[in-house]
């Protein structure tokens, strides 16, 4: 039997290990990209203009020096870790000399806001509906909701997002097509700005929720229909415990235990799922930044985003693991 402090320590150790391995994998993968940021910059600078070939050779040399890409892979690796430990990702290579952290910092709040809110909303709604549907198996409305959630689930996200856009942006144009807030609006903590942000997030959140709902719904429903047959539920029913209490504290409460783990894991998808949302709805965020960084061969930026993502997700999982005993008292004994 392990005590809780030992548990925390092992878990912390594991966290550090996971982050370390993850960042190393990311480093290897990003540095094996064949895209050369210098060539990208040259191409961008000369794409439309007339530049003599001699000048290009000179430009190539000076950019290499400027971007600090002279050393070998090993030098870059150690330099990278030195910087990371100081919390610095270095300058972006596709927006030189702006620091990576500035670029990421500008985009991250949008991504985190959008995905956290939609993930949580989806999780709560999916579990609630799924729980109700599993408990009140006869309800026709819930069964209908189930069919709806299931039918949306397998449709490729891109299609769902786009159809929503066409319906609410074109056929019945009530929602804005693009952006995170109204154009030329001052960013301030005013009702106008908050309202604008909320309005612009309706479609992205709705699209993510529609596709995500089915998974939680189905998972919760099957968990609940298993739990309903557990003795303690039958016993509580025999004991005349209130239905609402049975549903909340007996059925849902127990079914939620695995769903909370699921939530922690799905936070990982936050950095994957955003790209198409951002593209379709023109929503600001890390996804677009990431794709453009990949295109530009800006491995500093790619690595910066990936590292932030790895740390954030591991941290989320770690926190959930540490809080797990609160959710499931049985873990404490382990």
């Amino acid at each position: 039997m392990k005590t809780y402090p030992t548990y925390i320590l092992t878990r912390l150790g594991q966290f550090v290990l996971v982050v370390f391995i993850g960042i190393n994998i990311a480093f290897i993968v990003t540095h094996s990209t064949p895209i050369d940021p210098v060539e990208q910059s040259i191409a961008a600078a000369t794409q439309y203009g007339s530049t003599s070939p001699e000048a290009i050779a000179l430009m190539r040399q000076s950019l290499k020096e400027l971007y600090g890409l002279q050393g070998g892979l090993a030098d870059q690796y150690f330099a990278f870790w030195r910087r990371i430990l100081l919390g610095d990702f270095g300058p972006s290579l596709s927006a030189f000399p702006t620091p990576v952290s500035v670029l990421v910092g500008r985009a991250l709040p949008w991504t985190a806001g959008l995905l956290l809110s939609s993930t949580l909303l989806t999780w709560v709604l999916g579990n609630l509906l799924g729980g109700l549907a599993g408990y009140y198996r006869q309800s026709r409305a819930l069964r209908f909701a189930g069919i709806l959630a299931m039918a949306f689930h397998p449709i490729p996200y891109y299609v769902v997002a786009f159809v929503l856009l066409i319906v609410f942006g074109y056929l019945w144009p009530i929602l804005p097509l693009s952006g995170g807030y109204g154009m030329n609006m001052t960013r301030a903590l005013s009702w106008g700005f908050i309202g604008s942000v909320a309005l612009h997030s309706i479609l992205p959140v709705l699209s993510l929720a529609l596709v995500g709902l089915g998974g939680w719904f189905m998972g919760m429903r099957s968990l609940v229909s298993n739990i309903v047959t557990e003795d303690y539920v039958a016993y509580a029913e025999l004991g005349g415990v209130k239905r609402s209490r049975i549903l909340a504290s007996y059925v849902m409460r127990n079914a939620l235990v695995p769903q909370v783990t699921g939530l922690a894991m799905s936070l990982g998808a936050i950095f994957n799922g955003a790209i198409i949302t951002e593209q379709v709805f023109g929503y600001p965020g890390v996804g677009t930044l990431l794709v453009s960084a990949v295109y530009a061969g800006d491995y500093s930026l790619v690595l910066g985003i990936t590292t932030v993502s790895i740390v954030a997700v591991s941290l989320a999982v770690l926190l959930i693991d540490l809080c797990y005993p609160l959710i499931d008292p049985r873990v404490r004994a382990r």
Partner: protein
Amino acid sequence: MRTWRAMALSLLAICLVVEARAQGPISNLPRKETLIVENPEGTIKNAGWFNIWAINAGGQSTGLHQLGMDTFWYIDPQKGLDGVWDNSLAAEKPIYNADFTEMTVKLRKGIFWSDGVEFTADDVVYTIETHMKANGLRWSAPVQVNVAQVLSPDPQTVVFKLKKPNSRFHALFTVRWNAMWMMPKHVFEKAGDPLKFAFDPPVTLGPYTLNSYDPNGKWFIWQKRPDWQRTSVARFGEPGPKYVAYIDPGPPDKRVIAQLNHELDIIHDTSPEGMFTIAKQSQSSHGWFKGFPYAHPDPTLPAVVFNDELDVFKNRDVRWALALLIDIKAVSMASYRGAATISAIGVPPTGAGPENYHSPLESWLQSFELDTGKQKIRPYDPTIGKQIADMLRPSLKDQIPSDPATIAKSFGRGWWKPNPQAATELLERAGFSKKGDKWFLPDGKPFAIKLTVEGEGRPVMTRAGSMIAQQWRQFGIDATTTVAQGSMFDRRAAGDFEAMITWSVETWGGHPDLSFFLDSWHSQFVAAPGKPQPPRNWQRWSNPELDKLIEQIRQTAFDDPKGLELGREYVKLVVREMPTIPLMSYNVFTVMDDTYWTGYPNAETAPYTDPVPNWANTKYMMVRLKPR
């Protein structure tokens, strides 16, 4: 059940509230005074960076170089407001000495920066000297290669002493898409390292100045300068729009929706289908051409660019055989749904191209003979443009012109007639052989070609590539397409491709001079295999005859009519040698909406400039735009 009804009702209520809200303006700018334009750069990563002289650090066509920047000269890809050549900051054309080692520029008087400081020769000298000193600025390299010294004898005169003769040195300051922009000395000299200075807010020389921008790079709003009269464009009148917003409207479908909702006045480019949808559904929108093919042909020539250093493509017969296997009608249909302007020769069929090259060379092309070893054929079919028009007429009816001159202008003239027999003979002469359905190389390996396309970034070219690969495949060559996406530039420069749909030919458009691209085709610049190739000779083709032509052009003045003769010699040479297979002009589906603004350029009545809004010369469009 009651709860469900309540939920449905509240949802409806929310919808109604939202509807009431959403029908307001998309921004707090007065819509009637605002022009909303697509910026094809999309979302700008580093929105707060306006130092355009630092390479790739921020956006360029966010309005920054269209409305905020200025330099000596502009050459219009179309007719121009007052001729193709415009003296912008310069008062007159460049003045060279006899051996092209010195260029003198006379500057206009009365031009002011947006902060009220006068623009003088000091700014020019500062700009040049900064680029001479600092490495890694956008124009550092060309300045360092060319300029020995820059002087300003008086505030309106600048003299460049060159390191070696260069008859095209002025091209560095002549805007096609862009050119070397002038820096405000009084701002930069206080800013420290010019590479690390964000230049926010920018001090502009153009008729507009920055109003506001989105830190996430989705939009940039420019405002007309109250002192717009003190800018170079004032010669043509007052710019119409008080505000110009450059936005990222998203993927092609969304641009279409946005314009149909009248929330986007100018679409930079969309898919052909998107263009057709707008043409069908909107009365107020139109392209460069009133009817089909709508699109503006850019002075750019997409082609099948071979990697001529590869053994397979070293042989002219193979290149010609592959050209004779392309059915350009099908390529035009597949890529542009017919809305392409085809070109058989190595000059884009746009701007002044047709009158300088295509038309005069038509008879030469018709009599051009190709010897396959077994027979002599005349591969040129002058009726292909007309055939495409005829093919489209049944479905598009009146939209398709019937006047031969208009057809030639919009669909192009002739192209190579597909001739599999001749291709077979050419390949066999090159030692290739056909066994069963498949072709094999002289060494017995299967004849396979990977045709690299850019993918989503250039959907139309991707489609053209797929079609060409299919045509080669049907002949028995194992041809497939590869999507390069973001690695396009690297692979093109590194020669890491077999054949590619891209362009190595770009011209001024309005001016017959070809040096813009041709100079870099000299064999002195061809890189060794595996080493990066400088732009634009991506095909890495070298030819002594071509070198001679280029050397002659270097010694000819920019406006010398002899240059045109030499250009035509180049055209004949590349027809014979086929180092790349020219296909068509790069047609851009720029769509303009008349709901709020009129006076956009168009092919029929107002070809005064290129409507494509990421070109720096769209500043000339502003003075013609009038509120509706």
